[in-house]
């Protein structure tokens, strides 16, 4: 059990994504830092980028990648160019989970990504997709439409997402734009099991739930809910999808909503990804408002954090996000989540 670098890395490679693996890699990084072994420092950090992204710790990925990119710029021979750009892409994608970072900075980083993609002979396919995602977060439908068109027109390349992810992303955008039928047509290969990957069909199921309820397709929604829950049950790194399930069950199935709340609140509290925290809290608040006093007593809560704390933190984040993005969407969204749930509950609860 010697804590040598190789031993730690071996242990890390063996471990599943999550806290244990992150801990082992961080220790390996400290070990490499003390011994100033650049290759080891680099290797362990790149592994951490990957692990952190798939364990719901985007902030750790961003920090580790920042170090690697600086080294890479000094000495491009240290790592494979394609892998470097591939990871950069993930990091920028995760960056969107932190609306507490000034919008101008996020945009600047997207431009840097685009520039580097061009320099390495790649097109702006992924860049346009990112712009479209950002517009969606800031609730700008016109801009979403604009970048969606550009993204779809652009040929994909080796830095684009996989086929399944691309279809899932298109589906999501079309749903946002209110085009349910078109979205279902695009999602066809996913729903028929012909296209899948690490996060697909999970997230497409999640994306479809509320739009299907709005269109009064309860049976279909319920089918996808079951399938989705099965896929993400007992897995780490899928909190974004869990939030969608939580929201759906808050509308349709109170006991399930309670158990989702109990099981995943600790993970949300623990998460450093601000947007995920905020989204979970927004649904949790609406969920809490919906419970009667009797039910409230039956819900298991963590000792340190009360619902009041959660509300307070949610409001703080909303203000912060709005300030950093020069908008009011995050403050407004809290009410929007609440009213959407209330409205749908009248039909489906």
């Amino acid at each position, binding site marked *: 059990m010697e804590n040598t670098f190789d031993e730690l890395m071996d*242990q890390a490679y*063996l471990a599943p994504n999550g806290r244990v693996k992150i801990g082992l890699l961080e220790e390996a990084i400290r070990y490499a830092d003390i011994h100033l072994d650049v290759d080891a420092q680099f290797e362990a950090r790149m592994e951490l980028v990957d692990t952190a992204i798939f364990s719901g710790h985007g902030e750790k990925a961003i920090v580790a990648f920042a170090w690697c990119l600086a080294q890479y710029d000094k000495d491009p021979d240290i790592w494979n160019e394609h892998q470097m750009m591939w990871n950069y892409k993930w990091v920028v994608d995760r960056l969107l989970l932190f609306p507490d970072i000034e919008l101008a900075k996020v945009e600047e980083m997207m431009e840097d990504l685009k520039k580097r993609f061009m320099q390495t002979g790649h097109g702006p396919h992924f860049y346009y997709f990112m712009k479209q995602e950002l517009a969606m977060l800031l609730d700008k439908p016109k801009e979403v439409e604009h970048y969606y068109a550009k993204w779809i027109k652009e040929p994909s390349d080796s830095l684009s997402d996989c086929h399944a992810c691309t279809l899932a992303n298109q589906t999501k955008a079309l749903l946002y734009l209110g085009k349910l039928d078109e979205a279902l047509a695009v999602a066809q290969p996913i729903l028929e099991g012909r296209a899948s990957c690490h996060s697909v069909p999970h997230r497409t199921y999640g994306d479809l739930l509320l739009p299907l309820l709005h269109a009064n397709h309860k049976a279909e929604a319920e089918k996808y809910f079951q399938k989705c829950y099965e896929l993400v049950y007992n897995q780490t790194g899928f909190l974004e999808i869990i939030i969608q399930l939580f929201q759906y069950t808050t509308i349709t199935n109170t006991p399930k909503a309670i158990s989702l709340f109990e099981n995943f609140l600790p993970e949300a509290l623990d998460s450093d990804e601000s947007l995920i925290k905020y989204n979970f809290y927004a649904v949790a608040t609406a969920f809490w408002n919906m419970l009667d006093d009797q039910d409230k007593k039956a819900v298991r809560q963590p000792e340190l954090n009360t619902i009041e704390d959660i509300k307070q933190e949610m409001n703080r984040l909303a203000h912060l996000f709005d300030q950093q993005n020069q908008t009011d969407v995050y403050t407004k969204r809290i009410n929007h989540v609440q009213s959407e749930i209330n409205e749908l509950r009248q039909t489906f609860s």
Partner: protein
Amino acid sequence: MDQFHFKVNLKGMIDLLSNHLYSTPQVFVRELIQNAVDAVTARQKVDPVHMGQIGLELFTSDNASPTLYIEDNGIGLTEQEVHQFLAQIGQTSKNKEDTQDFIGRFGVGLLSCFIVSDEIVLLTRSSKEPKTIEWRGKPDGSYTIQILEQEMEVGTKIYLQSKRGFESYFTKARIQELVKHYGEFLPYPIQFYDDQPIQLNAIRAPWDMNLEEALHYGNNKMQMNYLDVIPLYSLSGDANGVAYILPYSIRINAKKQHRVYVKQMLLSEKVEGILPDWAFFVTSILNVNELKPTASREEFSNDKRLKKVQKELGECIKRYLVQLTKTNPELFKKIIQIHYESLKFLAQEDDELYALFIDWLPFHTSFGRLTMKEIRDQSKTILYTSNMDEFRQINQIAKAQSICIINGAYVHDTELLQRLTSVFPECQVKHINPNSFMYQFTDLDLADRRKTYDFIQIANQVLQPYQCSAEMRNFQPEDLPALYTTSEEALFLRTTEQTKEEANDLFSSIISQLTSSKVKPSYAQLSFNFQNPTIQKAIQSTDTKLIQLIVEMLYVQALLLGSYPLKKQEFHLLNKGLISFMERGLGE
């Protein structure tokens, strides 16, 4: 509708086979013996008392390449069968209904001979018709068939002349070695005709030996000193064999390779996935009758049956271990010492084994490596940290205070600990972190607190830029003047600071914003030890400059003791401090 056929380029096909399908050219020997064995088996089906026999010989001369000759007294081929089977790739003469009696599944077998030879000459006479047939095949796919006048015994003879560059496979020693390698455990006698016929079969296969013999065999064969041998049996694979326990520990993610025979013919020495993943502490020799090899015949098709066989073989190892805890605890202890990682994996998956193993399993603690039994004997309250960094922070003082703390940062450890109360309900398992641990240290009384007030005040000012706060406590060991502890959040903050020194401006500013929006940036803590003689002297000093210097140096020293990589600022602090002390020393 018209029907067409693809034209298959045989030369390209053979190139494909030799370069991609088979891992080595030497497999042609295996394929030849296999065909011979299958022919004998087929003949015994119609004539149960027939005594099968396979023979090989090597012809060499000074002016021609060496030629390998192999004969069998199996069922032979009729003229029609020759056309049908040897002319078409992928066609096998083995009847579909009873394929399980034969080793080969693919008519491609003979084609592997073209890897080492430019012509195959085959003489055969079937038990069904009195014709001696000569077939000559070339790698371009052309062949000739001739009915010979001469009489021949029922069976098949093949001549194979070495291609240039492959002569090394055509020596007496090599051929004998290869036949033994693949076929020493085959049920029919195989002879090599030299001046005297040499019997190439082994007397007995390891799966037919008793355990003692099998252990002896394994040790000799592999030049090893295995700890023990475990009998293996699987009903669904009709598999028999032995697993040897390795005498050294093996990397958890090293490839686990096993020596596997199919119907007594060696499939490969490097078969993976026949035993469960956790069984990486054994290597095995197995004979399997009911699993399908893939086209390369070097591994098995990954199907449901393989999973079942894997499970059944795993059960054999489990049963053995359970028995061993009762019959030979000393050996069990030795196995655990070497292979604890494998056994932890196993205990994690199986409740019964968890209860049986947990006391024996070793953990990394503040007292070194201890088994759970030894840990439980120390205290009913089991303390553990869940990551490496927390453990390192606490370790220094835990040791000095004789407190046993488990480092639960390794794979499976935390999960194993959390289940402890299911077996030992009297135990209490507690997760601790540096803060909760430091909290146990006694605070100073009021009088002492007054004495340290100024010192702590100055220390807090000095440490503020380093996101660290100061406090004074009583703790052991006395010779430790200060201890740096930090929470996960504070450590992350430290990492971000360190990264900002390296990262480009854009990333730097993003990282700053990422951390500044957190509710309350938690600080690390430097706990000074009131018991320490140097600290006692320092708090009496009235020289503010000197106290600042001391705090700075203790801070850097505490970081180094805790194995934290220094930030640039801190390196600078260390340099500045050393110089100042030197100057102070010289100045007096």
